[in-house]
Structures are given as structure tokens and as C-alpha cells.
């Protein structure tokens, strides 16, 4: 029995709460009646037990039910055992404390980290508080444990005001522990979050922390795991202390699983490939930590500081500062010194350039420096990086990870080569032009951005979540090719010179957004917008607003998104960032014209986008393709299928030249084109196009990728339309299987797949079998968080309604249809083409019930929508025919016969409709007597 009453004032303390086994029995519906009644009585008075019970029911409902009790011991027991406690890697488990550790008495938990658990404890002998860190035994074993103890003793000898003092190290019952100075305050991370800090606050903190680190280096100690969590700020006097020296475990077993340990992101690159830790690797971690901290500052740091930090972040340890002291000197703000240095180097350059005879030499040297300068842009797709990314991908356990890696690898390799080639050529161009004109500057800025963007993406790919793996290919493709930079004309201006720190932040956020990590990106993007506005950096502002618009769009906040994109476009125009301007107008056009459904404004924005794209000239090829795709979509939305097809063709052609045939054929553009063929009744072309789409997806993404499943579904839909439901069912089933493996339960596409499967089963007349599948699709869709739930739900409802109507479950059908219709109306989508289908089914049901007036009303509305171009030919004919029947019932006979004949004509053009055609003929001949 577990006395919970004490924590809950509303229940009497004399009341004993039922123990967990009893509550669990009720939650899992295996309790005896008497037990149930007792528990009902109890939870009526004890809210905390009721909440517990409800929580257990909720947990039980969504799957993770406990293993059922084996009923027959002799045979069942041994085999049932392993499943009772499935073996897990168990890295999440915090370590357990003892009531006392050595002579220290544990008071309370301070925190749980990757290395172990930290407790506040009391040292009774010295009557002071200490922090006790219990280290995870799975990381420290045998010889390593001994080494750690030796190191801890060395650390205990180090005493410095900026280093957390280690008092004691030892082992109790095989568990290693450290007793350290207790610092009552915040970690650097917490300190930065508490309130916005200024650059000079942060630099002062960096000096203190760096001094501590330098002292340790002088004593021959390296930190190995410096990060914001290990830099502590004491509240009482503001002193900064570095903690946890030497605790990092560079062994491969450093947990990569997110929650506890986090990824070793502050680790210097050389440590990732197994080089021994050094003061230089600490320097790297220190600089990365400070760089990030400065990124969160209220103001922006002087260029000199950024330059110093960047030197500390050089990939080659020898290129960093000789020691912490030199780094700290460079981080001390003293503007005069930097000014002096600038004048000094300019003077030297002047001397070098003065001798006319040395011109050729200088030219060659200049070329070499130019290339070196551009190549230094920190993007390297070398074997070590490739390897890290591969491991990161495979670690996600996504079934398609290997394939996704291979394709991303190929693309990044290509981009890498392009970058180097472009750098080389850009320098040659610049030299042949004699002086570095604006065009050359613009190219160099463009290349440097391309490198930054690629590098930011690679950093994310190194420690990816599964969503990243799914989107890796798309994320690489969404970045422009470095070769585009070469196409920038000589007249182009370089764009605004922006703060490199902001540019790096932007690249990171953009990479997050492109890899689908929208939630992680959003706060940063908002912050970046306001930073850019404060610093009046319109170029960054434009880019950040563009990202913000995309994120808001993802969340279905359409008007907010439109406003962000509008502002982005304006900021881009103001800063002559043509590429951003073009993208922002494109986005705005798509959002307004296709999503919000304002065709006129959509078209206007598309024209603005076109102007921006044209201004980009040859360097905007990729956007020319996107513009065509946009126009295709807008035309599709407004029912002009021929124009849509024309534009889609053009978009696809651009893509083929830009990305090659496989990527083009597997793109959304290819899919849209296929669907346009289909909607216009060009079945063979549609089939060819979509089957190419499917096989290109297979080639690019492999057979386990959700995108391939999407291809299967599209072809399944085509097969459905052309009356081959057996083939369609096979495709849909395969898609459902892939998606179940690859995506979480509440992914909208899983509901789509389920729905399509139900439709293909339904098509074969297995109505009863289709019904539960369709209901399952609805259930999944209803679980989809926010966007695009309502759109999905109404679509499933339409199909469900149709199915129920076919099963003559008329009440249910009307209910489903009405729900669908009201969802359309709530969304202000009263003219949506899909609405016609819901209305058609309602009409058919009303007809069956002889409610001809209701039938006539809804069918009239359906026909108006259908003629607008929304429905497949066959369905349009069906609407006409149903309306004809309704009108006949209302004794409007001439009109009825006319409509029925129209329907018959229309249906002749569509395939797989001989049954329906026969129905119509029969109906007509009955009524015309011939």
C-alpha cells in the first residue's frame, strides 16, 4: 500500500490508496467486480488516483500494453520470460544513488547528464555542501576507471578561481564518484536564456572561463568536453567556473541518443576521428561555445572577435591559436590595435604590389590566393565527413537510411566538385577582367554563401533525426548549385555585405527548415528576424522572413505566412537580394493563388516573381523551373488543364537540364504532369509518365522510402481511374506496408494510403471489407496534428460517405457527407472541386429515398462545381445523370432528358464505364420509349 494521501489535501490521510497492481488491473480490464467497485469509490474521493488510473488507460490504449500473464506455467513460463523485460541498450537510465556516498550524505538531485547523475550532498566532516557526481558505470570500466581516478586526483591538485574545485574522487561499491565544489547559479546555457546579454557581458564571461581553461592546460590537463553546460556562473558573485574536466569519454560508446547526452556537437573535428584530445581541441570547443553565445547576444560582436573565434574553429588544429592565452588576447576588445593591424597589412600589400616587374608574379600569387581563399570556405565532403554522415544515417534505423545516404552522398559529392570548380573558374574570370569588378565580388559572395549553406546542412546530416534522413535528398536539392554563381553577370552588384555570424546562423536555420525540423527552427528564425532588423541588415532580414513565412505556412498559418513573405520580398527588393526576392514572390504567389485560392492576386504575384527571376538572368535557371511549376499549379487550381500541362512540361524540361533525368522524373513536377494527363483523359500518356515517376523514385530513394510509397500511391490512383482495381490494390497495399515501417502513426500520408487501399478494395466489390479500412483511414487522419488534418479528414469523409452509400447505410452516409460539406464550408472552401463529390453522393442517397427536392438542390450545386473542372470526366457524367433523375422526379422532363443525354455523351469518352453507360441507356430508353 502506498500512502499518497499525504501529497493530496483533498483526500483524507487515513485513506490508503490502492496499490499499482490493483489500479493496473482495472485499467487493463481484468479486475474483479468487487475490486472495480472499491476503486470507483476510492477515486471518487482521491483525484490523484483517478488521474493515475486515467493515465494508465490512456497509455494502454495507444499500444504499449504490458505483456499478458502466462496462464500455464510449465510450458509458457520460460518462453514468456524474455518478452517480459525486453532488453534495451539502456543508455537512458540514470544511475542510482546511495543514501550516502563515501562520507557524503545525499540531499537532493541537482541534475541528470550524459555522464551521470549529480546530487547535492553534505560533507558532515567539513559541514559544507558539495556536488556529488555519480558516473555511469557502463562508460567507466576497468582500466579506464583507474585512469579516471588518477586524473581526478590530478584535478584535485588544481586550484583556480575559475575552475570548479574537485575535492575527492573514489569508488563506492564499484560506482565511481567525484565530490566537487557546489556552485549555486546557472550554466552558461541557462545564463543566456535568463535574459538577453550584451556582447561585452559575454566576452567578459569568456575571459573568465578561458582563464580557467588556460590554467588547467598549464597544469597539463585537458577538458575534452567543454560546452555551455560545463561553464557555470555563480549567482552570489558572478564568478564563472569551468567544471567537469577530463570527464568526457571519447570512446565510441558516447551515447548518441539525444535526450541525456546530446550529440557531441562541441567536439573538435579531429577528436571525431580518434585523435587524442589536446589544448587545441579544447580551444575549438571553447570557440564554438562562445560563437553560439554571441549569436544570442543583444548586439553584434565586432568583426575582430568573430575573426578570432573563426581562427579557433579552424579544422586543422595547427591553424588555431598556439594556446588559450593568445586566443584570450585576441578576444580582448581593443579597437585601436585592430585598426593598427589593418593599416599595417595594407601597407605591406602596397609595398609588394609596387614593383611593376613583379606584376606577373603577383598575378599568379593573386590567383593562388584567390583560389585558396574560396576553397577555405569550410565545406569539405571528405571521407571522414562522409563516414560520419553514413553512421548518423544508419543510426536512425530508418529502413531506407542506406539508400538515402547513398543518394545524398552522390549529390553532396557533386556539389563539392562544383564548388571547387566554380571557385577555380571564378578566380580566373576575376583575373582576366583585370580588376575585381562588382561582378567578381558578387560571384565570390555567392560562392561563399553556397559553401556556408552546404556546410550547415552537412552539420545537421552528421547527427540526423529520422525526418532528416527522409528529406536529405530534397534538402540538398533545395540549395542552389555553386555553378549558378558563375553565371552572375559582370554588372551585378555584390549585394549587401552582411555580418558573417548572422549569415552562419541563417545557414543553420535554413538547413533545419529544409530538413523538416520546423519546430526547432522557428524560435531561432524569429530571433534572427529581430536581430537583422535591429542591425538594419535587410539582406538577412529578407532571408529570415522568407524562412519564417515557410515555417508559418507549414503550420497552416496562411495569413501570417503571406505577411512574412510579403515583408521578405520587400526587404529583398530593398537590399537588391534578387534571388531572395524571386523566391519570396514565388512563395507568395503559390500561397495566395493555390492555397488561399485568390487567383487574381496569385497571378499578380506570379508576374512579380517572373520579373525577379528574369533579372537574375542565367544564374536563376532553377527558379525559372519553379516559376513554371507555380504557373502550372495555378492553372490546375483554376481548372485550365491545358495551360497547366504546358507549364508543367516547361518546368520538367528545366529540371532535366538542371538536375538530370532521375531527379526530374521523380519530382513533384513529373507527378503533376501525369495527373494533368489523366484529368484530361490522356490515359496512355498519364500511365507512361506516372510509371516513369514510380521507377525514378525507386531508383533515387530505394524500395523502403516513403517517397517511393507516394509514387506507388499515385500509380495506384491512376490504375483505379483506368479501371484496374486489382493492380491498384497491390500498389496501395505495398505503399501501406512501406509507410507503416517508415513513418509515425499520425502521418497524413498513412491515412491517404489507407484510404486509397480502401477505395481499390471497394472497386472490386468487396464493400464490407473496404469499410473498416476506410474507417481506419479516418481514425488515422483525425490524429494528424494540425495541418493538413482538416483537408485530409474531409477527403476521407467523402470516400467513406460514398462507400456507406454503396452499402446502403444511408443514414451514416448522409452524416459523413454532411460532416465533409461543413468542413469545406468552415474552411471557406465552398467552391472547392472535391466538394462536388460529396454533394453528388448525397444527391444519390436522397434520390434513393425519393427526396427529389433535396436531391435536386445538392446535385445542382455539385454540377456547378463539376463544370468548373474539378471532377474526373466519369464523375461529372454521374452528377449529370443523377441530376437528370432528380429533375425527372420533379416532373421537369425535357431538362432531365437533355441532361441524361449529355451525361451519356460525356461518359463515352471515358474508359471502364460500360456498366454505367448501359444504366444510362436503359434509363433513357425507358423514358423515351425507344
Amino acid at each position: 500500500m502506498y500512502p499518497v494521501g499525504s501529497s493530496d489535501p483533498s483526500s483524507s490521510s487515513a485513506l490508503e490508496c490502492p496499490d499499482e497492481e490493483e489500479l493496473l488491473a482495472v485499467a487493463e480490464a481484468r479486475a474483479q467486480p468487487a475490486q472495480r467497485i472499491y476503486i470507483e469509490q476510492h477515486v471518487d474521493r482521491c483525484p490523484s488516483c483517478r488521474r493515475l488510473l486515467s493515465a494508465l488507460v490512456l497509455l494502454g490504449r495507444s499500444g504499449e500494453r504490458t505483456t499478458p500473464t502466462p496462464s500455464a506455467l510449465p510450458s509458457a513460463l520460460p518462453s514468456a520470460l524474455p518478452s517480459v523485460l525486453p532488453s534495451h541498450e539502456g543508455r537512458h537510465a540514470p544511475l542510482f544513488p546511495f543514501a550516502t556516498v563515501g562520507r557524503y550524505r545525499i540531499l537532493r538531485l541537482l541534475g541528470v547528464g550524459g555522464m551521470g547523475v549529480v546530487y547535492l550532498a553534505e560533507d558532515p566532516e567539513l559541514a559544507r555542501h558539495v556536488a556529488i557526481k555519480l558516473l555511469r558505470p557502463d562508460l567507466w570500466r576497468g582500466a579506464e576507471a583507474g585512469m579516471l581516478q588518477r586524473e581526478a586526483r590530478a584535478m584535485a591538485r588544481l586550484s583556480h578561481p575559475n575552475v570548479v574545485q574537485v575535492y575527492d574522487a573514489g569508488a563506492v561499491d564499484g560506482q565511481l564518484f567525484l565530490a566537487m565544489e557546489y556552485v549555486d547559479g546557472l550554466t552558461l546555457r541557462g545564463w543566456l536564456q535568463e535574459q538577453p546579454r550584451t556582447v561585452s557581458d559575454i566576452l567578459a564571461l569568456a575571459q573568465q572561463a578561458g582563464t580557467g581553461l588556460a590554467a588547467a592546460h598549464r597544469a597539463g590537463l585537458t577538458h575534452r568536453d567543454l560546452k555551455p553546460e560545463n561553464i557555470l556562473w555563480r549567482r552570489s558573485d558572478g564568478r564563472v567556473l569551468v567544471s567537469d574536466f577530463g570527464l568526457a569519454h571519447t570512446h565510441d560508446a558516447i551515447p548518441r541518443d539525444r535526450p541525456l547526452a546530446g550529440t557531441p556537437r562541441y567536439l573538435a573535428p579531429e577528436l571525431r576521428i580518434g585523435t587524442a584530445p589536446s589544448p587545441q581541441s579544447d580551444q575549438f570547443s571553447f570557440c564554438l561555445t562562445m560563437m553560439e553565445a554571441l549569436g544570442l547576444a543583444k548586439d553584434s560582436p565586432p568583426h575582430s572577435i568573430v575573426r578570432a573565434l573563426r581562427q579557433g574553429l579552424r579544422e586543422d588544429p595547427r591553424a588555431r591559436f598556439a594556446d588559450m592565452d593568445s586566443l584570450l588576447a585576441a578576444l580582448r576588445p581593443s579597437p585601436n590595435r585592430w585598426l593598427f593591424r589593418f593599416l599595417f597589412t595594407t601597407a605591406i600589400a602596397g609595398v609588394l604590389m609596387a614593383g611593376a616587374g613583379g606584376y606577373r608574379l603577383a598575378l599568379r600569387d593573386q590567383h593562388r590566393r584567390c583560389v585558396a581563399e574560396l576553397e577555405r570556405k569550410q565545406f569539405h565532403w571528405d571521407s571522414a565527413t562522409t563516414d560520419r554522415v553514413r553512421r548518423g544515417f544508419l543510426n536512425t534505423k530508418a529502413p531506407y537510411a542506406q539508400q538515402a545516404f547513398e543518394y545524398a552522398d552522390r549529390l553532396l559529392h557533386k556539389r563539392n566538385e562544383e564548388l571547387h570548380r566554380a571557385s577555380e573558374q571564378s578566380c580566373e574570370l576575376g583575373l582576366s577582367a583585370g580588376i575585381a569588378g562588382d561582378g567578381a565580388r558578387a560571384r565570390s559572395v555567392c560562392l561563399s554563401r553556397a559553401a556556408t549553406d552546404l556546410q550547415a546542412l552537412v552539420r545537421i546530416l552528421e547527427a540526423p533525426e529520422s525526418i532528416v534522413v527522409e528529406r536529405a535528398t530534397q534538402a540538398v536539392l533545395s540549395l542552389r548549385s555553386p555553378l549558378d554563381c558563375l553565371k552572375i553577370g559582370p554588372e551585378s552588384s555584390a549585394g549587401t555585405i552582411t555580418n558573417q555570424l548572422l549569415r552562419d546562423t541563417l545557414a543553420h536555420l535554413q538547413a533545419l527548415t529544409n530538413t523538416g525540423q520546423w519546430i526547432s527552427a522557428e524560435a531561432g528564425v524569429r530571433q534572427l528576424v529581430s536581430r537583422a532588423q535591429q542591425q538594419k541588415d535587410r539582406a538577412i532580414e529578407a532571408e529570415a522572413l522568407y524562412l519564417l513565412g515557410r515555417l508559418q505556412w507549414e503550420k497552416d498559418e496562411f495569413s501570417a505566412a503571406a505577411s512574412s513573405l510579403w515583408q521578405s520580398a520587400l526587404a529583398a527588393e530593398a537590399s537588391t537580394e534578387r534571388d531572395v526576392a524571386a523566391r519570396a514572390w514565388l512563395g507568395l504567389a503559390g500561397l495566395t493563388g493555390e492555397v488561399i485560392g485568390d487567383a487574381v492576386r496569385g497571378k499578380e504575384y506570379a508576374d512579380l516573381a517572373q520579373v525577379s527571376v528574369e533579372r537574375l538572368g542565367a544564374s536563376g535557371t532553377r527558379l525559372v523551373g519553379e516559376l513554371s511549376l507555380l504557373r502550372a499549379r495555378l492553372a490546375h487550381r483554376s481548372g485550365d488543364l491545358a495551360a497547366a500541362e504546358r507549364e508543367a512540361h516547361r518546368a520538367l524540361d528545366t529540371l532535366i537540364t538542371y538536375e538530370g533525368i532521375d531527379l526530374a522524373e521523380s519530382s513533384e513536377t513529373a507527378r503533376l504532369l501525369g495527373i494533368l494527363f489523366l484529368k484530361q483523359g490522356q490515359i496512355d500518356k498519364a500511365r507512361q509518365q506516372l510509371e516513369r515517376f514510380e521507377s525514378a523514385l525507386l531508383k533515387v530513394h530505394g524500395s523502403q522510402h516513403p517517397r517511393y510509397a507516394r509514387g506507388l500511391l499515385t500509380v495506384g490512383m491512376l490504375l483505379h481511374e483506368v479501371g484496374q482495381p486489382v493492380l491498384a490494390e497491390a500498389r496501395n497495399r505495398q505503399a501501406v506496408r512501406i509507410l507503416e515501417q517508415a513513418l509515425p502513426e499520425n502521418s497524413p500520408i498513412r491515412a491517404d494510403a489507407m484510404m486509397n487501399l480502401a477505395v481499390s478494395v471497394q472497386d472490386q466489390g468487396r464493400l464490407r471489407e473496404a469499410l473498416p479500412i476506410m474507417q481506419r483511414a479516418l481514425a488515422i487522419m483525425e490524429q494528424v496534428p494540425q495541418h493538413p488534418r482538416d483537408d485530409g479528414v474531409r477527403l476521407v469523409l467523402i470516400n467513406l460517405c460514398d462507400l456507406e452509400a454503396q452499402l446502403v447505410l444511408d443514414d451514416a452516409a448522409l452524416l459523413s457527407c454532411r460532416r465533409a460539406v461543413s468542413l469545406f464550408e468552415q474552411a471557406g472552401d465552398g467552391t472547392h472541386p472535391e466538394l462536388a463529390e460529396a454533394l453528388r453522393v448525397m444527391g444519390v442517397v436522397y434520390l434513393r429515398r425519393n427526396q427529389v427536392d433535396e436531391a435536386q438542390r445538392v446535385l445542382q450545386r455539385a454540377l456547378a462545381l463539376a463544370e468548373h473542372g474539378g471532377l474526373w470526366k466519369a464523375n461529372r457524367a454521374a452528377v449529370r445523370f443523377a441530376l437528370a433523375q432528380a429533375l425527372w422526379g420533379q416532373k421537369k422532363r425535357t431538362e432531365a432528358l437533355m441532361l441524361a443525354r449529355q451525361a451519356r455523351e460525356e461518359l463515352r469518352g471515358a474508359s471502364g464505364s460500360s456498366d454505367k453507360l448501359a444504366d444510362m441507356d436503359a434509363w433513357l430508353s425507358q423514358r423515351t420509349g425507344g
Partner: protein
Amino acid sequence: MMDVATPFLNALTVASQTELAYSAQDHAQLNAVLHRILQAAHAAWPSIALADDRFLSYVAERVIPSPSVIPFPDLMQRLEQLHTSDLFLCCACADGNDRAIAQLQSTTFPMLDRALARLGIDPQRRYEVLGELIPHLFVADDRKPRIASYRGKGALQGWLRAVAVRHALASVPQLQEDDQALAVQPGTFDLEAQYLKTQYGPLFETAFADALRSLSVRQRNLLRRHLFDGLRIDDLALIHHVHRATVARWIERAREDLARYVYQQLSKQLGLQQKELQSLLRAIRSHIDLSLSKHLR
């Protein structure tokens, strides 16, 4: 085969405070079952050393719920249903065996973390809860460590999950008093309740509290669970072993009773015109209908 049944029965006698009647054949059968239990437990946890007699007396203390007499066949049946290998691990943990504690954590904590995550508890809080759970489970304070109260009736995973959830809920900042919150929970009265509450203040609150008291235990729990804890009709049907339609009817009835009671109380005390009250009741009812359709879809 070594006789492990006798020490087991001795421990059982101490725990149940009664002698059990059994035949020699029973004794042999029990011995065989206990041997299988031991074999299975050692196979499940090969690296954990625990003396057989210690483990079997631990089982004996838990196989019978409280000091009571049960017939021998019942004992055998209970033994067969017991999750004995889970008990083996718990026994070792309760005895302070480091390795067992580490094993238990590594096999179950990731699952606990997921369960807490599904209840919407944020990562920082989850790790605190899991961290606090450790001393709670394994460190004996004045009595036995908490892990010792697992009796093996259900799987250990489920039990641990319940303990963790209880711990997490208890340490969540105290929620508003449930029933007061229920009065304005969307779905009870919707807007009307909020309107009544602001309009008639304490009068309404008293009326509502009285109304709630006038309901049956089942009705009260149904409303709280459905509206407050987020349980769906299907969940409630599961707990109550009835059809979902029955649960739906019960809830409808509970709401109707609640509305009528509030109406009666208010009409008595406010002396509103008959017409005003009628429209009020209609408004309340229509909102109840609306919210019903919302929740029952």
C-alpha cells in the same frame, strides 16, 4: 531433485500465519514447480546472483495477498500466474544488488521515459522524475524499498509504469481542484457555465457543487474522466465492462441530471421569471447536446 518445497512452505506459513494442508503428492508437485521457477529465473537473469532460498521465501511472502488460508490447488494456480522471474529481479534489487538495479534500469527506464513522454511530460521533467524514482524504488527509508511492494501479479513493466506515472503526477504542480475546474470545463456546460459563473458567482458554484454531490459515484467519475482526463467513450467502456453505447447513455444521463439540478437550485434561489429560467435551461441543454455530439463522434 533437491527439496526446495519445504523451506518455501515454511516461509509461506510465516507469511500467512497458517499451516497449509497438503499431501505428499502435492509436496512433490510443488517441488517440481518451484524448480522450474528457479530454472526460468536464472535463465532470464544469468548474471544476477541470488540465493535460491532467499528468492523462494520472497515469492512465498507475495503469493498470498494477506494473512489468510487458501487451499493447496489455489496456491498452485497462483504460483503459475505469478511473474516469478520479474520477482527474482526485484528481490535482488530490494537486497541492494547493484547489478540487478542496473539491469532493471536499463531494461525498463527507456520504456518509462516513453510512457511519460506520451503523457506530454517534457524531457527535462521526465529525467527529473526518473532520477527521483531511483532512490524512491531502491533505497530503503524507514521501511522496505518501494520495489519490494511489487507482488508479481501483473508484469513488472506495467507496475513500474504505474509507479512512475503516479510519481510524475504527484509532482506535477498541483492542478486546480478538479471538480471546480469541471464546472467550466468545455463540454460540461460550455459557454453557459462560464456565463452563469460570472453572472451569479458563488450562487452558481454552490449549486454546481451540490449538483455534483447529488450524482452517483459512477456518474461523477464518468464526467471527470471523460471531460477532465480525456478518456474516450471506448476507454470508459473498457473500464466498466459495458458496451460503448451504454457509456454514452450514462454520460448523457449524468449531464442531464447535472443540468436539471443546477437549474432547480438556481430557480429556487434566484427567483427568476419562469420565462427567463426556461430559456436558460434551453440554452444549457442545447449546449449540452452540441458538446455531446462533439465528444461522441
